[in-house]
């Protein structure tokens, strides 16, 4: 009969899909669940997640079982005769009260965890995280350390259309950055989130939360990492074109290693500040400029300088880029409309390199720019 035939086809299809799904699932050893993470918060959140998951699964099984029972036994084809009842005060009260009780049972641990998460006081150190289109800036407020963190170059190459490298060949594809956020373990760290242009959200699953980074506002969060390791995350609030390409990497190290890292960062900063502005060879400018262009400018102006029609102007053939060095430097330093200012992100040498690269690529042919010229434009 057609009915049993349909049934067989349907069952066959379901089995096939499930086998396929499971096969693929295990072949790739894919992830299924929330991480337990490495902080007291993330563990509490994980436990809470599992509790509510079990509760809703149990309710689901009970409800679906009743429905299936009814569908099987109360069908006309089995000769079921319809009863005509249409209300029962007892049943209606029961299925209002029981869910209320279950909800209260869920609300208690939820409230406790939430209160725990909001205790941002008595932190031992503070990091301010600022979202930019499309990178993160980290300021260690007590240490006077400050740096940007952008997508690692190999990921950035493989993510282009028509890229020559494949994502599969890149380690931690899209989850790796040039500068890690180094933090000590077993330390209560206050993390302030904010943004410079549009909303972003700072999220490292292993820490147990995400929080929006909103321009003009500062959000207060904290974490306490219990285990050394490298923890990866991503921006979690749509922030424009390259929202998918601004990952976060937190590296938790022992307190001693952290102290050493701080010394090293401060040393680097002193060296950079002390280096006198000098003439740099054009080849060197071009090489450095290409790298900086790809991580800072290519997102909008595109790797080949062709821009995005109507959104971001092309730099190939641009009057500003090929014109007076001062005007060009000005635009990079101070930004314009949607273009962010780079004066705090890039040094004079950096900007000179980028300018030199742009002025000598994609058919452009203007003279090289030295750091001194940028310094004068500041």
């Amino acid at each position, binding site marked *: 009969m057609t009915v049993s035939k349909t049934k067989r086809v349907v069952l066959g299809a379901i089995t096939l899909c499930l086998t396929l799904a499971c096969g693929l699932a295990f072949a790739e050893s894919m992830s299924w669940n929330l991480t337990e993470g490495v902080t007291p918060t993330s563990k509490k959140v994980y436990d809470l997640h599992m509790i509510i998951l079990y509760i809703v699964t149990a309710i689901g099984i009970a409800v679906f079982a009743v429905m299936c029972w009814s569908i099987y036994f109360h069908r006309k084809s089995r000769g079921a005769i319809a*009863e005509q009842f249409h209300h029962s005060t007892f049943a209606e009260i029961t299925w209002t009260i029981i869910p209320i009780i279950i909800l209260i049972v*869920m609300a208690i641990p939820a409230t406790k965890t939430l209160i725990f998460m909001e205790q941002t006081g008595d932190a031992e150190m503070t990091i301010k995280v600022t979202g930019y289109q499309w990178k993160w800036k980290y300021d260690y407020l007590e240490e006077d350390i400050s740096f940007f963190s952008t997508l690692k170059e190999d990921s950035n190459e493989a993510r282009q259309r028509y890229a020559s490298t494949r994502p599969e060949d890149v380690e931690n594809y899209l989850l790796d950055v040039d500068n890690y956020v180094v933090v000590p373990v077993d330390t209560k760290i206050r993390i302030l989130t904010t943004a410079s242009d*549009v909303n972003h959200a700072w999220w490292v699953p292993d820490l147990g939360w*995400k929080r929006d980074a909103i321009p*003009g506002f500062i959000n207060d969060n904290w974490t306490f990492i219990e285990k050394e390791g490298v923890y990866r995350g991503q921006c979690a609030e749509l922030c424009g074109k390259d929202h998918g390409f601004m990952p976060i990497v937190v590296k938790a190290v022992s307190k001693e290693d952290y102290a050493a890292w701080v010394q090293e960062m401060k040393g680097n900063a002193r060296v950079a500040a002390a280096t006198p502005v000098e003439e740099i060879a054009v080849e060197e400018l071009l090489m450095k400029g290409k790298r900086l262009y790809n991580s800072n400018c290519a997102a909008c102006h595109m790797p080949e300088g062709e821009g995005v029609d109507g959104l971001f102007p092309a730099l190939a053939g641009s009057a500003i880029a090929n014109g007076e060095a001062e005007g060009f430097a000005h635009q990079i330093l101070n930004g314009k409309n949607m273009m962010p200012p780079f004066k705090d992100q890039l040094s004079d040498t950096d900007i000179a390199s980028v300018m030199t690269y742009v002025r000598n690529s994609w058919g452009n042919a203007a003279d090289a720019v030295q750091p001194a010229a940028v310094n004068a434009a500041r």
Partner: protein
Amino acid sequence: MSEAVAHDDHHDHKPTGIGRWLFSTNHKDIGTMYLVFSLIMFFVGGAMAMVIRAELFQPGLQFVDPQFFNSMTTVHALVMIFGALMPAGVGLANWMIPMMIGAPDMAMPRMNNMSFWILPFAFTLLLLTFFMPGGAPAGGWTMYPPLVLQLGDGFPFLIFAVHFLGVSSIMGAINIIATVFNMRAPGMTFMRLPLFVWTWIITAFLLIASMPVLAGAVTMLLTDKYFGTAFFNAAGGGDPVLFQHIFWFFGHPEVYILVLPSFGIISQVIPTFSRKPLFGYASMVYATASIAFLSFFVWAHHMFTVGMPLTGELFFMYATMSIAVPTGVKIFNWMATMWKGSMTFETPMLFSIGVLFMFSIGGFSGLMMGITPVDFQYHDTYFIVAHFHYVIVPGIIYGVFAGVYYWLPKWTGVMYDEKLGKLHFWLSTISVNVLFFPMHFIGLAGMPRRIPDYNTIFTGWNQIISIGGFAFGLSQLILVWVVIKCARGQGEKATDQVWESAHGLEWTLSSPPPFHSFTTPPQVTDATAHS
């Protein structure tokens, strides 16, 4: 009754040609136009979803650039919500409400015409942005500033499209309220209204209360961009988060605007095919009204991560959890309607049962996300994408499908092809789960939403999801086939009652019904009222 019908047929002079549709004031013709428009938009939005799934089939960028990808997700959502789901609900209301309450037509037929004809213009404005400098909207359907303000020349078109859609919805809502309040047949008291009519009255009030809020929000965006105001600009003393509050004050009621009509439909369908009256009619009405009322107090569960004070987070967590109670009541009432019935499983019933199972899955994940501390993990990941697609696709869209199959024989006068209907159901149901269930997993495992590319650990699931997506998309062509067959009159002739156990005034009219539904109001008694 047969007398009234015969009398009517006599005067059944329809206008002809294109004028019949352009100038239509007839609730059925306008209902048909809404439904056809909705179907077209379902495929337009669906095509965008296919682009999204094709791009996400593998890591790396194969087909589109990130900016265009963002336009796809943004416009997909806008087209589906405002172009496919809302017009489907209004179309069904137009067709069925006058027939269910014993009226000849809607109360304000000319306004009815206008509220439909605004839609094609609104969507022309919206879709034209694809050809403008700066491209189509790409900041998410939620239009959060400051990002949305970066949109190019398409920006005012987006805003005006939203305004038009709001105007259209408000006019539709006023019309429905006026019709139900004034044009019920004698004896059709409020507590005798079919549930579909009830859910639509409540939906109409939600629309009137929430659409102007959206209009206000997008107008503030417009003045922020062009007239130097700073509602949402912190540098000018404004607050970007304010927009999110206003938007979701509209947005959460909006999700109930979408789902309540579907709840109404399955409340009609399940009793018919269980051959049993609806269980707990009064509690269904009260539960629907409570859901609608509560829906104005839970908006901030969409924005737990913006950094609200603890008390605010607790309030919105408890309020969100409390919605589960009336929602549960509805599910239990439907189950009790089926219990000890004598069920048959024609296509409308299959789709309704699909709603019961799969809307529940969406409800469970909704409850999980309502728990603030864990939502700090779930928010803006594929887990939430799974949640709202479960409530929208096998929740709302299945409800609409159930309604279409249920009433198609009434509309066209011929039975649809049951075999194709069942095939449509089973193919959709298998593929929709392959499509959306694994999204829970990748969301929990850490894949954010709205990204065009991902780390290779997510590849396997994304491929399964994409395959499910393509299969689901293709399965919908069956619906088109079924509808075309019926529209061309191919199929068995339908009786007036169509379904063995169908109750209600619409089944007392001929199939297809006369052009002006009830020219003589029928007398309604307890016996002839809702099932």
